[in-house]
């Protein structure tokens, strides 16, 4: 997030798009609800009538995957109404002229034909956000899990740039990170394009730096993303080590994924449970869990916090870092003499400019937001204050593209996927917590009540759902949250493996799978 969580109570206009925050980030959502109770206006754009839609002053029920056209039209209206923040645009951005010319043709009427949202509502939303004193944007995977995920994010940045809603309290472009330490995994360098601290692997200076500390030459080209690596299994990739991820259930195109992992000469999995993925491994290592190990975790607002050990792990389970280090040592790789999590974290701090001012003891109370460039630095709760990292904010000229697959006579229904409040991911954890099943006993396909009738289904009965890749059975829930012609399910239950259906395309820049859009056919089995 560009701004801290406590800022969520400060905007006068809040724009939530592609985020079901009350279910996915419930405690963050309580802050938004307080802002609204104190008079802030809410714009919600989401295909489903989620709780944030009920709270909204303007609700934009856009068709799945049509976000870019909505955002282009909002930019169009903001400029047409003279709400562009000239001072900010001139002082802090570049490419504005080309951008303002680019958006001229993208009228709300044009966007209505794509998003199915009335042009008048697009106008209302645009004017509301354009007039905001402090306008803040929040988004989640509903924006990124598309073939145009990067375009979506850049379209949101364009809106913030043209209105000057960035770099100030109560504003910003704020992605809510889904997993507890997904931010930290990137911070720590587990990325094919960046060393620790987001130092690009393409930069010769950083390459030299890591060559020196790791004592060997490192490729000067990008590594493949996980998606590409899975595709290359058995043909280029012959060994994998996977830590704490149930790839087989979370990734799209489940059958491909299973075949890929089976084709490896060696698969090593480090996990808490014998997951569907671990079952395919040659060696499985038992890791310590939350509450059993010391460590560090960074939240969605870049706050670096300590995790502490409270109980002993079961049997012989060991911390992930210890397991990886032991394998490395047995392979003769130098630099793995860590004796504690503290040793590992402090080495990361030495190598990452974002963490340069931090160490294990300084983060004891969790008050720092990175970047913390040196020991006397107070941390950076708000990014881009006064200046952008690379000088000026750059407007990007984005065009709308259809999703990788669109509905047809054969697959006439849009399927979109997400999470529900009580369950988390593939339920390796929540599924084993007593009582959670009371709240969400099993997977349901949410279908508009009239569609349930039209398609000859029954509330609580079974439906067969088919995409061009596969087919699954799932129970029907008649639910008016789903618009007509669009159905929703989560990806939490292995007996309802929605990832046999999804996976039509990937964002060309990030390789993020288009999990939010999949044309399907839903019928009585």
């Amino acid at each position: 997030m560009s701004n801290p969580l406590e800022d969520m109570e400060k905007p006068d206009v809040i724009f939530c798009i592609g985020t079901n925050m009350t279910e996915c980030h419930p405690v963050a959502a309580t802050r938004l609800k307080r802002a609204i109770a104190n008079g802030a206006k809410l714009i919600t754009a989401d295909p489903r009538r989620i709780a944030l839609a009920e709270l909204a002053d303007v609700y934009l029920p856009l068709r799945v995957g049509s976000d870019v056209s909505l955002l282009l039209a909002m930019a169009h209206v903001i400029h047409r109404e003279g709400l562009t923040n000239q001072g900010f645009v001139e002082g802090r951005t570049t490419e504005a002229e080309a951008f303002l010319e680019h958006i001229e043709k993208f009228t709300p009427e044009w966007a209505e034909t794509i998003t199915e949202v009335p042009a008048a509502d697009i106008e209302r939303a645009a004017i509301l956000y354009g007039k905001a004193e402090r306008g803040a944007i929040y988004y989640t995977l509903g924006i990124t899990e598309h073939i145009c995920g990067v375009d979506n994010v850049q379209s949101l940045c364009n809106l913030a740039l043209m209105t000057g809603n960035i770099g100030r309290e109560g504003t910003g472009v704020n992605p809510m990170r889904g997993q507890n330490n997904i931010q930290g995994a990137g911070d720590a360098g587990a990325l094919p394009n960046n060393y620790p601290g987001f130092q690009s692997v393409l930069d010769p200076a950083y390459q030299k730096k890591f060559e020196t500390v790791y004592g060997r030459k490192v490729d000067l080209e990008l590594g493949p993303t996980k998606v590409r690596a899975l595709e290359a299994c058995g043909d280029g990739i012959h060994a994998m080590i996977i830590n704490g991820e149930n790839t087989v259930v979370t990734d799209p195109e489940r059958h491909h994924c299973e075949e890929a992992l089976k084709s490896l000469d060696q698969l090593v999995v480090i996990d808490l449970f014998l997951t569907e993925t671990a079952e395919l491994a040659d060696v499985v290592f038992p890791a310590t869990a939350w509450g059993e190990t010391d460590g560090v975790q960074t939240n969605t607002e870049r706050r670096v916090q300590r995790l502490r050990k409270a109980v002993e792990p079961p049997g012989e389970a060991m911390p992930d870092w210890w397991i990886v280090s032991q394998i490395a040592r047995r392979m003769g790789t130098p630099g793995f003499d860590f004796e504690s999590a503290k040793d590992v974290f402090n080495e990361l701090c030495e190598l990452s400019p974002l963490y340069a001012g931090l160490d294990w003891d300084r983060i004891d109370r969790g008050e720092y937001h990175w970047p913390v460039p040196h020991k006397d630095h107070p941390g950076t709760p708000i990014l881009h204050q006064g200046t952008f990292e690379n000088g000026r904010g750059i407007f990007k000229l984005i065009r709308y593209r259809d999703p990788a697959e669109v509905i047809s006579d054969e697959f006439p229904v849009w399927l979109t996927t997400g999470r529900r409040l009580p369950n988390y991911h593939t339920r390796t954890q929540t599924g084993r917590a007593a009582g959670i099943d009371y709240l969400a006993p099993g997977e349901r396909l949410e279908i508009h009540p009239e569609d349930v009738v039209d398609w000859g289904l029954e509330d609580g009965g079974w439906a067969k759902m088919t995409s061009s890749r596969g087919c699954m059975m799932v129970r029907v829930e008649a639910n008016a949250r789903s618009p007509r012609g669009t159905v929703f399910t989560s990806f939490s239950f292995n007996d309802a493996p929605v990832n046999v259906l999804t996976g039509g395309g990937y964002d060309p820049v990030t390789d993020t799978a288009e999990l939010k859009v999949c044309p399907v056919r839903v019928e009585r089995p």
Partner: protein
Amino acid sequence: MSTNGTGPSIVLDGEKVAYTPGETVYEAATRHGKDIPTLCYDPRLEPFGGCRLCVVEVEGARAPVASCTAQCQAGMEVRTRSARVEVHRRTLMEMLVSENREVEVDELTSLASQEMTELVDRYEARTGRFQGRQSGASRPDDPNPFIMRDYDNCISCYRCVRVCAEQEGDYAISVKGRGFDTQITVEFDGHLKDSACTFCGQCVQTCPTGALGDLKALAYRDVAGETKKTRTVCPYCGVGCAVDLLTRGNTLIGVQPAMDGPANKGALCVKGQFAFDFVQHPDRLAHPLVRGEDGELHQAGWDEALDRAAEGFLRVRERYGRHAVYGVASGRAPHEAAYTMQKFIRGGFGTNHIDNCSRA
């Protein structure tokens, strides 16, 4: 402590002290080290003024004043522990005891659950005179596995109602009736699951009497040992709510929100509050597993498993080159896991064949 400069001040138990405009008498007094008893007060919520335990004497006022709602006014003379207010407080506590079935409340019930009991002891109000008449009827019929609803012990402080409305914005809990007939309830007097309740547990954690209780923690009440708290962060979503883990010996018995948690300020959701027990589930892997000749996974010692993994990677590197190995780090595990994993790949193979699970 006294004022310096010209800021506004009040006289607190004979001493002149500064206050910040807008501050309540309770806030100013607490800041200056006074220990005024409260029951309906939760610093996160709008002051309510219901229990009247926090009363103080204000010079010139006829009756004692509830300090949690009264705003400081320049020159105000306040007495926080006069005999008169102490008698008043004791009487109030005796009345509450006479209406409540239980005075002893298991410490696992919730974070605030000992507040009433502590005040009963402070005012020696244990009269043993339970009148058999109490406000609020218990709801043992609610089958939810998280929240105990034993309104026999309710004192109508409305903290649960207010936390649900003001903190959560859910408005699931409401009040029915008045006086002895006051009943804390939810829509249609039904079960929590059929209301707007999201089982965040905030009502439980703020209830000062144990009328609302954490059933998951209470299920461990027979585990022997002293309860220990360890500060950590929720393992689920990216909000990063701070929590205190409750343990007895080596058993994880519950979670309480950290009121001073930098990201959550005491708030939690159902996952952070109640979904902790996966950690000690019998399905946990306790030993390394290695695939045998028979194609099955078998338990193995660390040496055998680590050697097998290391040899496998060396063999693949020899046969197919260093670009044949790929690492996937976890977005769930701590930094140290991701850092060592990327170092394993970069330092061991000199490639950038490393990613995490953020793309799915």
